[in-house]
């Protein structure tokens, strides 16, 4: 019998919609029509033809057998406790059933609470494992997965979303972008992701150079935008870190540096709307040719000028904008330690501090020239700082480094 050969599934989403799949193994190319019934009354029908990567990976045909829909609003049958049934139209094969309760706490909400509790537990264990330096690769993967989960849950429950809004977690048709999978990258490009769309645009702009520059991309999500957590699902081979404590680019850089694999760290502060892939490539070539331990970008150069440093020699002039803050050897990073987040003033003072530390060790510090920062008087990108905050940060900086500069320390052996 045909119906015995059918396979499928129905699940309720946390937002009250339904998703599932239906497939006939003996007719693997056929798209089946699924009826959704509420207490045996037909409420909606859909062709199960949505592509789902998980189905493809499980060998469910070509993976184009999913469906996802909401029940029409104000159905009288949904007033009380009701059963929603998904049934294949031609054979009557029941794909799945879900029992729903009216009002109050939906079963989906209870499940969500349990998922959240489980995630909290996993997160604690993950932190413990990382503190003990156990299985770093597995911990990275787990952190990425948890980040994606957290983001999806947050995105579905974000307060600004209406009940009929598109759910990005369900309309994903597989990764939209693919970055190279590099076992030993030359660069680790760190992006501070406060906005999902902007970050995706930056990644799309830089991705063409990823292969040639041998660059891996690390996105640090401080949790400002829940949709950022969906990026790993949209961009293949993207490294994703989520930490609400990474609330400044400097803190994000410190976090990313711990798991970066590239020989050099490239911190992008406030990339322009369309950062140039050609610029990334030019920077990669210049740093491979000259191997300076530390390159500082226009914001940090401007901050160095503000604290009275002499103009630094230029290592490379980029034709397009890239938004470089720092580009540093990982060995140098290890020697000089993390950026001082206490100095954060929004205008790369922490990077200037880092450059001063490198200078004290006798390391060559060069600048990266970007067209929009050619004017020395121009404000650094993203560097509109309140004068009082700048004065406080500058005072802290000089208090810390004023004496040390008279007595330079030597680079540790």
């Amino acid at each position, binding site marked *: 019998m045909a119906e015995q050969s059918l396979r499928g599934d129905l699940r309720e989403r946390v937002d009250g919609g339904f998703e599932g799949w239906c497939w006939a193994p003996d007719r693997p190319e056929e*798209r089946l*029509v699924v009826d959704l019934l509420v207490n045996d009354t*037909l409420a*909606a029908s859909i*062709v199960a*033809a*949505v592509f789902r990567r998980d189905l493809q990976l499980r060998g469910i045909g070509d993976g*184009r057998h999913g469906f996802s829909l909401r029940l029409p609003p104000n159905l009288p049958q949904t007033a009380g406790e009701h059963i929603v049934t998904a049934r294949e139209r031609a054979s009557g094969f029941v794909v799945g059933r879900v029992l729903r309760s009216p009002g109050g706490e939906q079963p989906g909400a209870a499940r969500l609470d349990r998922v959240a509790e489980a995630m909290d537990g996993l997160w604690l264990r993950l932190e413990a494992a990382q503190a003990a330096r156990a299985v770093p690769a597995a911990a990275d993967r787990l952190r990425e997965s948890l980040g994606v989960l957290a983001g999806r849950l947050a995105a579905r429950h974000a307060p600004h979303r209406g009940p009929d809004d598109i759910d990005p977690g369900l*309309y994903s048709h*597989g990764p939209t972008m693919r970055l190279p999978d590099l076992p030993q990258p030359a660069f680790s490009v760190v992006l501070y992701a406060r906005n999902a769309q902007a970050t995706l645009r930056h990644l799309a702009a830089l991705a063409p150079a990823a292969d040639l520059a041998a660059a891996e991309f690390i996105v640090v999500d401080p949790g400002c935008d829940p949709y950022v957590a969906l990026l790993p699902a949209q961009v293949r081979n993207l490294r994703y870190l989520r930490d609400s404590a990474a609330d400044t680019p400097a803190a994000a850089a410190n976090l990313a540096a711990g798991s970066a694999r590239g020989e050099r760290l490239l911190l992008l502060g406030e990339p322009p709307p369309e950062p140039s892939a050609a610029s990334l490539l030019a920077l990669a070539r210049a740093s491979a040719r000259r191997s300076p331990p530390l390159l500082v970008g226009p914001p940090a150069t401007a901050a160095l000028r503000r604290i009275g440093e002499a103009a630094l020699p230029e290592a490379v002039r980029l034709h397009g904008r890239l938004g470089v803050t720092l580009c540093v050897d990982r060995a140098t990073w290890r020697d000089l330690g993390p950026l001082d987040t206490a100095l954060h003033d929004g205008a790369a003072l922490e990077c200037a501090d880092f450059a001063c530390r490198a200078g004290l060790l006798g390391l060559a510090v060069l600048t990266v020239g970007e067209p929009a920062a050619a004017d020395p008087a121009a404000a650094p990108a993203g560097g509109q700082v309140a004068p009082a905050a700048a004065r406080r940060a500058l005072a802290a900086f000089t208090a810390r480094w004023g004496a040390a500069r008279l007595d330079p320390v030597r680079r540790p052996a």
Partner: protein
Amino acid sequence: MVQRDTALDCEPGVIRLFGAADIGSRGMASGWSAPEEGHTWNDGLEAAYCISVRPPLGRFGLIVMGEPYVTRARPSQELALFGNGWRIAAWRMNARIETALTVTLEPEWWFTRGTRSVMRLLFYLPNSVRPKDLNDGQDGREIGFCFRSICLRQLPS
């Protein structure tokens, strides 16, 4: 631009999905680009789409889901829908979000021959544009709306 001419057989109440998996190129008379995964873009200022139903005819609700091509350089998309020459509705979309285009199709607008009633839906998109002309990638198609699903619903007479 792809030229095709076969009506999509619509069963009232069933949501059909644009894209390679379900609808494919069925019903796409003219003005369409090749079906992709889960969606199909128009290509040009006019996209003609033929649907058919079996009589008896009644009032149908037509729901087309999709997403307009809206960017900073092209902040709005206008769409006018004609059915067998009747001007049915028009929309102006200002946000790149999933959008439902919902109209009512009256029985007298259908063209009935034999056992089928056919309607040629014409989506007129005067703001369609080539993304590469806006420096938005290399896409050379003249696009305005990304069609995701279509559904006819029987309405009470």
